[in-house]
């Protein structure tokens, strides 16, 4: 019966309009029937989508673990039952993947810190303060997302070459410290969802603007913080085009660039690419699981309050 006290306003299934009104008068048995039906439906829909969403991963797992010969056999044999770790061993040794992983870890951790700090700061500015030109600047900021990266690639490369930044991590890291539009916008929206009274009250109590950001806005937008940290992690971890173009020597390569080395114009070493791609997913998967826990624990706190 605990569930009835938890917030479940989002039911889209069975519960007809007015069910809530009759809540206390309707017989217990019928209610629990409805609950069972609802549970079945919800779990059914979710399981269907879960299967759908796992398809590519299943296919990758299948490829990674099957003997090399079967990887290239057509029509593909699914789950031959022949499981081997050879692909992982050969893949790992084919290229310096330990180095790639370390590099990616470095790039990702620095850019996540940069992204979350700078974007929340800028997002707070856009959310909290009105100023002349704010709307225009906001549009300009969004406009930077509207240019295909391929178009600005060449001018950016020229710029970074002039600065001597080619084959360093600076072209990858520097944008993260100046606020990323996607995250700025995300933070702006979440800060705007915080009732204004909180800020006004704090201001009257003598809180500085930076204090408003640091002590009120950030703690209250914790789901947004965790969400953007998650996204920034995935974004940096999987970033492909920029490292591909701006890094030149193998000792600097990130994981994604390393993986691309298995892929040739005529012939791809899929039996090595897939297992190594899977290895590359593991760290982000850990971050996601932990991150989701955090969001969830935030929910718990709210519920228990």
């Amino acid at each position: 019966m605990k569930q009835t006290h938890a917030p479940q306003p989002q039911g889209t299934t069975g519960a007809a309009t007015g069910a809530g009104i009759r809540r206390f008068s309707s017989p217990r048995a019928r209610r629990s029937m409805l609950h069972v039906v609802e549970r079945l439906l919800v779990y059914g829909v979710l399981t269907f989508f879960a299967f759908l969403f796992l398809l590519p991963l299943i296919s990758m797992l299948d490829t990674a673990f099957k003997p090399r010969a079967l990887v290239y056999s057509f029509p593909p044999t699914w789950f031959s039952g022949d499981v081997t770790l050879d692909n992982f061993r050969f893949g790992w040794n084919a290229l310096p993947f330990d180095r790639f992983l370390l590099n990616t870890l470095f790039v990702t951790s620095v850019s996540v810190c940069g992204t979350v700090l700078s974007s929340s700061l800028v997002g707070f500015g856009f959310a909290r303060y009105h100023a002349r030109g704010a709307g225009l600047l906001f549009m300009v900021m969004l406009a930077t997302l509207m240019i295909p990266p391929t178009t600005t690639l060449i001018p950016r490369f020229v710029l970074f070459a002039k600065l001597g930044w080619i084959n360093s991590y600076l072209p990858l890291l520097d944008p993260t410290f100046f606020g990323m539009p996607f995250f700025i916008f995300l933070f702006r929206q979440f800060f705007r969802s915080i009732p204004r009274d909180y800020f006004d009250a704090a201001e009257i109590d003598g809180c500085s603007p930076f204090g408003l950001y640091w002590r009120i806005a950030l703690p209250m937008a914790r789901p947004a913080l965790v969400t953007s940290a998650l996204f920034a992690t995935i974004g940096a971890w999987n970033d492909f085009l920029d490292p591909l173009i701006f890094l030149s020597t193998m000792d600097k390569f990130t994981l994604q660039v390393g993986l691309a080395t298995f892929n040739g114009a005529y012939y791809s070493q899929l039996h090595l690419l897939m297992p190594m791609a899977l290895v590359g997913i593991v760290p982000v998967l850990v971050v996601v699981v932990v991150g989701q826990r955090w969001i969830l624990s935030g929910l718990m706190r709210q519920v228990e309050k």
Partner: protein
Amino acid sequence: MRTPAPETTRKQPGRLSRAAQRDQRRFYLFILPWLIGFVLFQAGPMLFAIGISFTDWLLVDTPVWRGLAHYRTMRSDAAFHAALRNTLYYSAASVPLAIALSLGLALLLNRRWAGMSVFRTIFFVPSLVSGVAVVLVWGWLFNPRYGAVNGLLGSLGLPQPGWLSDPRWAMPTIILLGVWSVGGIVVVYLAGLQNVPTELYDAARIDGAGRWQMLRAITLPMVSPVTFFLMVMVTIGSLQVFAPVYVLTEGGPRNATLTLPLYIYQNAFRFQKYGYAAALTVVLIVIALALTLLQLALARRWVYYTGWSGR
């Protein structure tokens, strides 16, 4: 209320105007990091791209001024027309699909039932797998002859479309592939749903509101800032669709999946028509800006910010 008082208002020379000025100062202080980054690293390449759209440039020599020639070329460029059509088609189909599906999934997931965290993680997984690996997997799964998808449909006695090799099916297939990346949107929605104060539901329940009513009166308005954010972002993103069409179809068959970003790429890096690619980019930006401004304008009607007036 929050609009800065014009300088000319003499009636309250002190407080409001000074407060507005102070706000202005603080605003620029907070957004300073972005402003610096924009001026240093983004404005240049952006303006360069716009400028080069009026020229022919072979990367090595000085660009040759062509005025509006590239923009005129577009009028009779059938490939451009196809790309424009396909991009708008993709956008119009994939944005509502992604928003509706992810909101639905997020609502289903936003429960304290057993196993929900597992589902959340599963839905997010396709967003973690990136790059070549996953696109190759799509190629296998949707291979008309040997793919698992058609194998499954065949065993169920359903028709087996040619997917990416059939001009009629190619774009719908690309749109379908986009569904796999809604996991990220679901996560944003979940974060948004958790920001909704539970007191609101308690109060509504006391008032005898049903679930559907609560969804419409509380949940949707409360997550509307998130919905708005996602709509703008997903729209902009949908106009940038590149990776799947680049890897899987190269725009074919019969230009059925040629999108503007892909056509821009082809012009810049395959055809050495950098000026034309830049002009196409300008068109793409104009479309994206127009759609974003439209969304911003409509936002006033349906986006609800707690206790904040206006945008």
